[in-house]
């Protein structure tokens, strides 16, 4: 039934119809009509402490659930504070809808108070954006925004609504008809010839390898991939964002590839004769020097986005379309072959790598980040939803926290946004309240968005925050160690007392500096009702191995010296208070 509503009321009604239950936001002048109408909506609003936090929360919600997360901000500075979060969501194909207030339409273009051309600013970092100046257009635009954000290759969509459009009234009734976008993207269809071509390449392969990216999870193809691997016995390497798309515990899962990938994985890639790339985009952190990437391999790319095909690495055949559909069509054409010699070859590579694994080294009584994460994995039985920040701890989390299920590792891959972890974890927890959520974050990145602890407290959310505190901007320090002659410019950090910081928020804070203490603090944190912050005082100058120096072939890895721990023992360890 038609009723008379304001634009602000229509907005909430439209969001409700999209199934939105929670939004993340921060009010201000140009969005005030929307906030006023919020009180009459069923939707819960999480008040953040900085709009960047709201953006990462929406992103974390999107990654954890597969449905678009929603963030709201006012015009001008509110909107520009979202920008880092929008760019983060864009590069990792995360479905989000951002709603910003805009100055009244009659003053647009006059440099009015808090006027920023946010659709202009976010043009290159959104999948699409809209400026809405008419009350009547709000509902349809919201519908389109969700459709675009969640459809195909997901991504962020921004809807900028002028204040007069929020305040205006019109006759309104929710329109349930499907979204019709006039834009007509040619429907990518996989031809039988392309399928046969791909199958022919796979069926003659002696050393094939699957490169699994985030597309596996996004297209819901994890089960299909498992079946495909079962049938073909082709080993799987994962990108950072591909983690969870194929169970870590599967014997044919080799682990992560790329700059900090497992050495044997990169070696396997370079020795492969066929690469089957699934929903991944050959990021430079994955391929190193593209000219030297798997030169002997015939390459097949299954990808929904045609603009990713032949962008970095030239492939012989591309199956463009939804990954699940392509894989389903391809599977019956691929026949099993004896890959035992290839499996044996990889096993030998792995043997060589494993002796360098930090976990094989004796426990020297000091705290190593890798030990923290590996123990955390054991203690949580690999079931936690892990949200990481960016830096060394992120790479250790990828290496040592092994996931068997999709959407259990949330991390900023493409943009590498420090400050992502805590707010993204809030979004993930809101999306999946039954999950045990662990934030793994560096002391540097934690301080970028630490104010969101306050949001956790206000919302009564239960997160476990593991600060991997090395007193350095660790990853940058590592680059300085390797490539800048150990000249540690602007990387040592003097930190606040994180335990007291937690306490100041009314939260539990814990500290540990010995491996023997990990079990107890993890148990205490898990048992605690509210968000708990653990300050893990780890070895200050530890290094993530292996490492492919940027721009190199992925075989050129800096490896952990055989006796690394013994050497590091001499160094001053964590300073005690």
């Amino acid at each position: 039934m038609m009723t008379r509503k304001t634009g602000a009321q229509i907005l909430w009604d439209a969001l409700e119809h999209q199934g939105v239950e929670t939004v993340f936001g921060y009010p201000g002048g140009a969005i005030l009509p929307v906030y006023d109408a919020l009180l009459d909506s069923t939707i819960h609003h999480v008040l953040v402490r900085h709009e960047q936090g709201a953006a990462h929360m929406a992103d974390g919600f999107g990654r954890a659930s597969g449905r678009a997360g929603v963030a709201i901000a006012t015009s001008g500075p509110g909107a520009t504070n979202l920008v880092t979060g929008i760019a983060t969501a864009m590069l990792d194909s995360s479905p989000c809808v951002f709603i910003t207030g805009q100055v009244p339409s009659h003053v647009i273009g006059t440099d009015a108070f808090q006027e920023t051309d946010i659709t202009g600013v976010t043009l290159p970092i959104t999948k699409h954006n809209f400026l809405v100046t008419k009350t009547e257009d709000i509902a349809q635009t919201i519908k389109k925004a969700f459709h675009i954000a969640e459809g195909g290759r997901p991504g962020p969509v921004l809807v900028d609504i002028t204040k007069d459009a929020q305040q205006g009234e019109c006759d309104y009734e929710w329109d349930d008809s499907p979204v019709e976008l006039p834009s007509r993207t040619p429907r990518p269809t996989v031809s039988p010839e392309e399928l046969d071509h791909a199958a022919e390449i796979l069926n003659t392969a002696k050393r094939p390898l699957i490169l699994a990216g985030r597309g596996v999870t996004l297209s819901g193809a994890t089960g299909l991939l498992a079946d495909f691997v079962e049938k073909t016995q082709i080993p799987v390497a994962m990108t950072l964002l591909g983690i969870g798309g194929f169970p870590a515990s599967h014997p044919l899962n080799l682990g992560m590839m790329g700059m900090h990938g497992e050495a044997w994985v990169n070696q396997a890639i370079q020795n492969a004769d066929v690469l089957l790339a699934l929903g991944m985009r050959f990021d430079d952190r994955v391929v190193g020097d593209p000219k030297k990437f798997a030169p002997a391999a015939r390459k097949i790319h299954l990808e929904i986005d045609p603009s990713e095909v032949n962008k970095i690495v030239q492939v012989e055949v591309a199956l463009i379309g939804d990954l699940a559909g392509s894989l389903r069509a391809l599977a019956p054409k691929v026949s099993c072959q004896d890959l035992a010699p290839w499996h044996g070859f990889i096993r030998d590579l792995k043997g060589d790598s494993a002796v360098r694994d930090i976990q094989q080294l004796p426990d020297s009584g000091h705290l190593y980040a890798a030990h923290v994460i590996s123990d955390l994995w054991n203690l949580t039985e690999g079931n936690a939803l892990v949200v990481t920040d960016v830096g060394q701890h992120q790479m250790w989390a990828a290496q040592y926290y092994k996931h068997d299920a999709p959407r259990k590792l949330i991390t900023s891959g493409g943009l590498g946004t420090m400050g992502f972890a805590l707010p993204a974890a809030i979004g993930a927890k809101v999306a999946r309240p039954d999950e045990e959520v662990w934030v793994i974050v560096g002391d540097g990145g934690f301080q970028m968005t630490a104010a969101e602890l306050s949001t956790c407290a206000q919302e009564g959310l239960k997160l476990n925050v593991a600060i991997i505190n090395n007193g350095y901007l660790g990853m940058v320090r590592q680059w300085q160690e390797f490539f800048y002659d150990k000249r540690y410019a602007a990387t040592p950090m003097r930190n606040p007392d994180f335990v007291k910081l937690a306490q100041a928020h009314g939260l539990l804070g814990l500290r540990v500096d010995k491996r023997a203490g990990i079990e107890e603090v993890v148990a205490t944190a898990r048992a605690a009702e509210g968000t708990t912050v653990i300050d893990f005082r780890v070895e200050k100058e530890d290094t993530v191995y292996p490492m492919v120096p940027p721009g190199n072939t992925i075989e050129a890895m800096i490896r952990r010296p055989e006796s690394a721990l013994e050497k590091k023992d001499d160094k001053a360890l964590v300073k005690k208070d």
Partner: protein
Amino acid sequence: MEPSMRARTFVVLVEDRPGVLDRVASLFRRRAYNIESLAVGHTERPGVSHITIVMNADDRVARLVEANLYKLVDVLNVEDVSNVPSVTRDLALIKVRAGHERRAEVMQVGEVFRARVVDVSPDALIFEITGTEDKINRLVEVLRPFGILGLARTGRVAMAREQTPAEEFAHEGVV
């Protein structure tokens, strides 16, 4: 340089909305594609604009440009007319110094190129010429010694000669 590197002409149909040109231009800038020429105008269909973009690209980049253009929600159709028989035209207005004593000479040159005189003043006249880019370039060269006082060109517009076979389109934006 890639052997397939050459000038490509894309005819892009877009929704006639504020900011659409911005989106297209932003795409080229962001992906570091270099636009040689760009022309925008209406089409026979209300609400649909026509953008002709000329750029240098090899086959691989040309496919990426097309794929990226299709990712823009406002883009309705993209055609790389470099691969099909097509007509390409440029329009130029050229103001040439032409005092009383040289006017006849200048006009004769124009006639050879089938340029039209669209304005005459005591010291100058304005030619209008349409044609291929090459033809216009040659006229400009021939007029240069007389003194060119102003030059405005539209950039190339292009159209495929034949109706391209109707492709299968979906209303669902896939990307």
